[in-house]
């Protein structure tokens, strides 16, 4: 988990650094060079994370999409349309302020909401697997509202 957090942080750090100078190449160039505007391999998990966004966040005890979540899903669907052979797993997570069993169910509702959003944006349902970790695998450690907000999430991972 720690390693995954570090990987994400470095991806974000690079995304910020790239934004300061502005992406130098167009999408077409990136496709032909095999790299995206941020230097990640086109079609890679890092590419998905920085160009579309890999996660959608939820309110406490909620599984409905916010406008930001809908926008992320629209970008993900666009990204997946560019790589039609890719398949993904959407994993649902919850914060620690709930009971284990119910949170497994809640994480699946969130993952399914995310999946249905992608399907509604044209992604073939057969490309998307769903799973729930409930509150068993928090993304961020700590018992703060800040951590909880990061942990009420669904994350898209390329298979």
């Amino acid at each position, binding site marked *: 988990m720690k390693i995954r957090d570090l990987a994400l942080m470095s991806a974000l750090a690079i995304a910020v650094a790239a934004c300061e100078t502005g992406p130098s190449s167009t999408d077409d160039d990136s496709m032909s060079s095999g790299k995206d505007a941020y230097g990640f391999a086109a079609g890679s998990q890092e590419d998905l994370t920085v160009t579309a966004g890999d996660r959608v966040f939820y309110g406490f005890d909620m*599984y409905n999409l916010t406008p930001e979540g809908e926008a992320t899903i629209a970008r993900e669907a666009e990204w997946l349309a560019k790589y039609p052979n890719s398949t993904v*797993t959407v*994993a649902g997570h919850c914060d*620690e*302020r*709930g*009971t*284990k*069993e*119910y949170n*497994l*169910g*809640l994480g*699946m*509702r*969130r*993952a*399914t*909401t995310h999946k*249905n959003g992608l399907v509604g944006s044209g992604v073939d349902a057969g490309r998307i697997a*769903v*799973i*729930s*970790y409930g509150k*068993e*695998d928090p993304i961020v*450690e*700590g*018992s*703060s509202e*800040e*951590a909880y907000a990061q942990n009420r999430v669904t994350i898209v*991972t390329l*298979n």
Partner: protein
Amino acid sequence: MDQDGANHKFLTDGKNLVITPRFSPVGPEITYMAFQGYKKNLEAQVYLMNLLTGTKQPLGKFKGMTYSPRFTPDGKKVIFSQTRSQGTSSLYEMDPHTHQLMQITNSIGIDTSPCHSPDGRQIVFNSDRGGKRQLYVMNSDGSQPERISFGEGIYATPVWSPRGDFIAFTKMHKGRFYIGVMRPDGSGERLLTEGFVLEGPTWAPNGRLILYTRITPSDRHGRGGTSKLYAIDLTGKIEFLLPTPGNASDGAWSPIDYR
């Protein structure tokens, strides 16, 4: 481990995330939920383990994720939650030997934490079918579900006392967690203890002592938080920590000593 926390023994190798172990009331078996693999090809299913041989096997093959397992009082079947294609969870029952599957509920929400009455005739469970999470009691075939929790806050993890006289539960209200008991008809609600995050009450075979998980908050680096097993008696006056080698959760009381 023993009831005083001594002589613990690890049953699984720690490679996979394993939660909610529960003893069979009649044989040397436990049922639990485990994650196998990580992210890719991840399986999250209910398993059975024979405590004498150490043999583990999935309860069955299912389309959805299965969780929240518990044996029926005769030990012949396992009742559990299974997720459906629209993200909801309903209750099912399976005979592990014949693999015969019976659907008990068909929920528009999340039905989970099922537990039979000691006579096997009724099931208490947790559901958000009415909006907020509440406790419901129904016949063991799934008919006539009736809500029994009507207090403030939300309710979860109901467990029927082996004596049949009380149902223990977790309650969440205004940011605090409580362990409480009520009569099977929902009357006489009493909160026994409270804390930051408490959950998962389980009864001692005598029906007078309850084991539960108590979690304390961690700092922003994830440090300092603990998860420990505590016992409390029905009066709420006697409460004590069960020493465990590290953090612990999801205690369960065995009907006899299998070691």
